[in-house]
């Protein structure tokens, strides 16, 4: 199992039956492959649909039906289409139970940066600021480090996506929960020690009394 699958399978354990969920582009999209048995979630794509499905059979693609990345998808029975104002009303109005987003950095307060690297890369925030400000739960799914550099940092060096604290950070090494007191290490990945996680993390970590092994979907 590669680290992306590991992260996706751990995040999938956070899915709650009968709720609305948004998955960001990239790694977070993989979460849809590991929905636990007996759990039914409604996946929203912010370009305007709830209930999209896997890409259609070749030749069946509809130019009016894509995901937020512009890739062809299908629609499941019961799917609903809507405009961008309704889509973000769902996201910002407290109707979205959970969003899963990639991250460039998370700081000791649990604030996320994931929309630009000044002077280098300015892709824009797309829907990320709305998702982080509006979803009931915000789960960051990302590699713990990039090229050996910690992404969970004491202070953001990149512009924040929102002033709001995210709900959970899931990486290839650990599950970390931002709290009022700071970042709490809750779980470690298979074969990873608490010391490994602390070493790979720049921000101070509070080690939970009962650090568990990651449970994967």
């Amino acid at each position, binding site marked *: 199992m590669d680290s992306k699958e590991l992260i996706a399978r751990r995040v999938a354990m956070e899915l709650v039956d009968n709720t609305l969920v948004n998955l960001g582009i990239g790694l977070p999209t993989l979460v849809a492959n590991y929905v636990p048995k007996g759990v039914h979630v409604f996946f929203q794509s912010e370009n305007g649909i709830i209930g999209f499905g896997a890409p259609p059979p070749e030749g069946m693609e509809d130019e009016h*039906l894509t995901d937020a*990345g512009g890739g062809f998808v299908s629609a499941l029975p019961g799917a609903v289409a809507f405009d*961008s104002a309704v889509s*973000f009303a769902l996201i910002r109005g407290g109707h979205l139970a959970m969003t899963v987003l990639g991250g460039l950095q998370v700081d000791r307060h649990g604030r996320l940066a994931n929309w630009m690297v000044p002077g280098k890369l300015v892709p*824009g925030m797309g829907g990320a*600021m709305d998702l982080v400000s509006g979803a009931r739960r915000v789960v960051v799914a990302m590699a713990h480090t990039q090229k050996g550099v910690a992404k969970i940092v004491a202070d953001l060096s990149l512009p*924040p996506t929102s002033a709001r604290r995210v709900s959970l950070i899931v990486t290839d090494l650990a599950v970390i929960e931002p709290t009022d007191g700071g970042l709490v290490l809750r779980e470690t990945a298979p074969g990873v020690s608490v010391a490994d996680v602390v070493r790979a993390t720049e921000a101070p970590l509070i080690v939970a009394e009962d650090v568990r092994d990651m449970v994967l979907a």
Partner: protein
Amino acid sequence: MRTAIDPATAAGLVPDGASVMVGGFMGVGSPHRIIDALVARGARGLTIIANDTARPGVGIGKLISAGCVARAVVSHIGTNPETQKRMIAGEIAVDLVPQGTLAERIRAAGAGLGGVLTRTGIGTLVADGKVVLRVGGEDFLVEEALGADVALLAARTADYSGNLAYALTARNFNPLMAMAAKLVIAEPDEIVPVGVLPPDAVHTPGVVIHHLLERRRHG
């Protein structure tokens, strides 16, 4: 009744330097024939208001590559390296707006609102220079209405009176922009007689549409 115009006529109604809303999300639900006609007429200095600039060679990406655009008010440009390149070269100004805020600002213009109060952007670069209002013990950014000179839309179906219905994720910003510009031109996949679209199936009332693009002609 609306009259149907050809793509060159539509492009001629969009003056150089105009602010132009363009429907679509990564090119899906964009008015492709009008975009081609704008490129063909060599439009210049446009301010494009849209979700994104798609990819090079696709939808709004064609306007970027052809040098039609002076400014882009969009939620992201990450999928179009050409936009990034021209921004760095100082050829295109880019205003980045959170996607939900962009939708609400456009909707506000169409609905006669001065703006909306939103949490999105509080504590970020987006809040720079903006008024913050406290409502119910919480801070909200005041985000002002955003209108345009022209809106160019795509739709699945139009009837002769301009009523529009959209399909699936091609709807996106189109119904919001339909209300928010002084001149509104819609490019439907098909045009049907009045009465074919049931009242509850219409997403945009024809009264806000000024012109329909004529149907595509074969051979």
